[in-house]
């Protein structure tokens, strides 16, 4: 043990107080608390936005539904990391439409002849040589977003066979949605 005491002036006392407080605060900030901390790791958000194989935890989806700031940040992340963006359709348009388009891509719907309850959603890419998108996010006016993993492109064309009544068809037909492709 170091026994020698120090004669501390006001300034030294203030300095050591500051050190002790900051050390205690650093300890508190990095203390191990049990259970979920109620926050979402940004690494998970990024993986959800960019990795078609990433399976999000229910906590992440709930947080995106419930936390307005988080979902706004997430949409900004989608905008920053997507290769194609389809904005809301002009206000003059009616509530639903049968195609969506942006610079570089056009999405159309075609009824399945084999099963009238199903529909093909067809993505036609202008640049057939570029890396095709593998993920689509449909974002609604209430800031919620739905992720759709796309199938492989063949000669600049991606086809999805979905129920007519699926959230994909409804979301893409809805004029107030925004679409991000990555």
């Amino acid at each position, binding site marked *: 043990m170091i026994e020698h005491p*120090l004669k501390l002036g006001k300034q030294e006392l203030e300095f050591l107080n500051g050190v002790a407080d900051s050390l*205690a605060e650093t300890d508190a*900030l990095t203390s191990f608390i049990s259970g979920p901390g109620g*926050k979402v790791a*940004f690494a998970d958000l990024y993986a959800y936005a960019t990795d078609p194989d990433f399976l999000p935890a229910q906590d992440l989806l709930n947080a995106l539904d419930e936390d307005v700031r988080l979902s706004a*940040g997430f949409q900004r992340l989608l905008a920053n990391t997507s290769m194609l963006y389809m904005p809301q359709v002009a206000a003059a348009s009616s509530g639903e439409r049968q195609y969506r388009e942006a610079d570089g891509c056009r999405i159309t719907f075609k009824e399945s002849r084999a099963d009238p309850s199903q529909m093909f959603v067809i993505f036609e890419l202008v640049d057939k040589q570029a890396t095709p998108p593998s993920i689509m996010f449909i974002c609604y006016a209430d800031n919620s977003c739905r992720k759709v993993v796309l199938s492989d492109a063949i000669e600049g064309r991606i086809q999805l066979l979905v129920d007519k009544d699926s959230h994909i068809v409804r979301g893409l037909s809805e004029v107030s949605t925004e679409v991000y492709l990555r």
Partner: protein
Amino acid sequence: MDSISAEELVIEEGKSSELTAAFQIIRDTTINDVPKFGQKTCREVARVVACRTYAPALLELCHLLVAASATDRISGRYENFFWGSGPARPSAFKGYLSQCYTLPDGITVQGAGVEIDYGEGEFGVTFARMPFLSALLEFLVTSVGYGALDEAVAPLLGRVPTQEEVSDAANGLSRVVYDYLKQHLPSVQTQRKSRSLLTFLAEQSNGEVGPGTLDDQAVLDYWLSHSADDGNGIDAKTYQSVFQSAISLLRVLRFAVERYQMNGALPIGTDREAGEIDPAKIEEAVASIDETPNPLDVLKQPPVDAVKFLNGREMDALDGVVFGTGVANDLPVSVLRNAVFSRAQFRITNTLRKNPPAGEMLSFIETVLETDYPTQVARFQSLAEHLEKTVLASLYALVYGSRMEAISVILSVLPNSDLGDLMGDLVGALDKPDWEDSNVVSLHAESAASRFMKMLRQGEGLSPDLKDLMFRAKKAHKENSRQGFQDHELRSEETIDAFVIAVDALLVAEKELKSFLNHPVANVDWSRQFTNDEIIFKDQYRLLYGVGHD
């Protein structure tokens, strides 16, 4: 002294928990099941936040964001550099940058880092610094949010900006962080527990303070005189909180005395005459005190936590005695008081929530103790034995996995063992001069090491003490049935990796606990001490929680 209400204190604690949750997320973030950030890196970020010295680091981060956004010439975005490059390690960032062949003019990757030439000056960020800056960025997106961060740094992306633009963005970011911390970091006014304890010590000893001044009696006196104070902003009601402050303060005072001995003064800063304390000097001091990580933290996090070296009860007990070399030895009675009476106080406050009648509460206080000092000392002794066996079982795992770290464990457990002959070839191979062919050297070393590991495994050709050690190691491993200790689990490289990381921490914890038990603890009459303390603590409990108190 400024006054702060109990209600305000609760709000302040709420602020802290929001920030703690942010740091928990950063610490728990994994990439392919590997922690994205090291424990030391997380503490470095927590330190600049706690000391409010984040501004220079934010400027560095802005420079790195310029380079990161330049790695993607098409989008000009920085995200993939930070979140698509794997665990935040210098090698990962170096690898990522080295693969970018089309960086714009003015940005060059060099041996030690990346250099940005702004025309009017240059700025370099080393690879070694990048994990810290990446963790700082993770803190920003978790705390102030991605939107606020992205808005502040938008002018830096897609081109090489001017230095003034980088500086403006860093200042903007600093303001965002300042506003956030104003809401979420407890104010200086409420960070007064240690402040008050140090002032108390200085007053008691005419301003002459040192580690020796902060003894068991001072800690008890402080608790007795401050625990009943309400509304002064000092949370000293529980003995545990006072004990924890004392441990922190002891580490600070040890640092202060060492600096005085080295320099004849404390490193307060240059502007002494103006009476200002430089926050950067405070951060430097905290960094210096913080240099040696607590071994228990290593055992609590991945990948080590996949192996059950200690259960929750054992970990809790060690948390109250392992604080760094010799710290517990300076406050032996306080350690025992905390172990026995803090638990009792916790039970009292829990019972109080049910609003029992006053008489019932007083009866509860009479019977609240679950243990006494001799029993607690026996528990610590049994914990020390468990640590010893766990180290031995870990040694067996290292030998089983042919890991060279086994040798340093052997040297720690048997410091007088002569490994010279056994390791002759290995030491000779490793000692060959640099100018020899490195492949030949590594083959020599590998072959000698593998022979040595085989001898340890088979127990053949070993000296009697080493043979006995390996026998005990195998026995300790076989007798441990906890998660990670089964024979089949040793076939997993990840499990062996956990043993490699954990064994040093286990050795440190074992050494510290044994030193505590062998020196100060051995010199106290614990039965007598308990009889005296029981009267003092129960009197204080009655004062705090008896009739008329909440």
